[in-house]
């Protein structure tokens, strides 16, 4: 049963990427889309917060890091939405997920987490993968550049 929900999660997140590309094809404004995508969960979380039992103390530092990382997420969402108008949604989506390598490095540095062979291998693969994706993009640009020039 638990595994079924893993696959439902995969389908849900996959459809999220697909929906964002579909919105881009319908000429949806990237910033407006991000605003709408953040407004609904913000409202939902606010309702859930108001339902908390009174007396829960939330230190100010929690709000500070929440705003910092929330801004990071919104900037990433906007960059993703703009990027899929220029490049491929598959590559953009993969980059969104490859970025998970960054907190792995920060965790090792910040919390002195153990550096395992698996972590090193995963991060090395992240870098190699990004290299190939960038190379692919450069080749694509070169292939389309003469056509664009001829079209002028």
């Amino acid at each position, binding site marked *: 049963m*638990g*595994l079924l*929900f*893993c696959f439902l*999660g*995969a*389908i*849900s*997140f*996959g459809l*999220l*990427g*697909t*929906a964002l*590309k579909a919105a881009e094809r*319908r000429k949806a404004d990237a910033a*407006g*889309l991000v*605003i*709408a995508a*953040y*407004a609904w*969960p913000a409202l939902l*979380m*606010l309702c859930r917060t108001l339902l*908390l*039992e009174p007396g*829960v103390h*939330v230190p100010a530092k*929690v*709000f500070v*890091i929440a705003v*910092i*990382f929330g801004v990071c997420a*919104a*900037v*990433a969402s906007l960059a993703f939405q*703009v990027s899929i108008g220029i490049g*491929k*949604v*598959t590559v*953009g*989506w*993969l*980059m969104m*997920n*490859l*970025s998970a*390598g*960054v907190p792995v490095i920060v965790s090792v540095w910040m919390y002195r987490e153990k550096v395992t062979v*698996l*972590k090193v291998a*995963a*991060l090395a*693969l992240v870098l*190699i*993968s990004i290299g190939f*994706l960038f190379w*692919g993009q450069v080749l694509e640009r070169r*292939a389309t550049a003469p056509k664009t020039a001829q079209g002028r």
Partner: protein
Amino acid sequence: MWFLLILVILLTNGMSAFGLKMIAAWGLPESVKYPYLTAWYAGGLAVIALPMLLKGMRVGRTEFVWGGVAGALSIGGQVAMAVALASGVPGHVVFPIAIGGSIFVVALAGRVLFGERMNPPTVIGLILGFVAVVLVGVS
């Protein structure tokens, strides 16, 4: 332009979930995550909405509908993962399946629905990236 956007995605998106780890490290109660997430979404909302408001721009119907769909699918994915974890499936199984699987779904949709064709380096990059994401999830 594309390279700059990808660099921004790589540097900002991964770190966006790091706050929950910091809260866990501070030993704060589980219920703190709700006010945290409220401020998280509000902060993200404000940084995009304020410049738009200052320019006098408005969110249209298309953005409102598709943004709602995106928000619902995002919450659906999070809930599905939370249920899987709560039912005893370990995190090193849940995250690679959910995240790796989503890449497969998007790649399939990109090819079938949006007609995206890829050159050999991009295909190799995607395969290696898929393996890397699964390994990051496992590690």
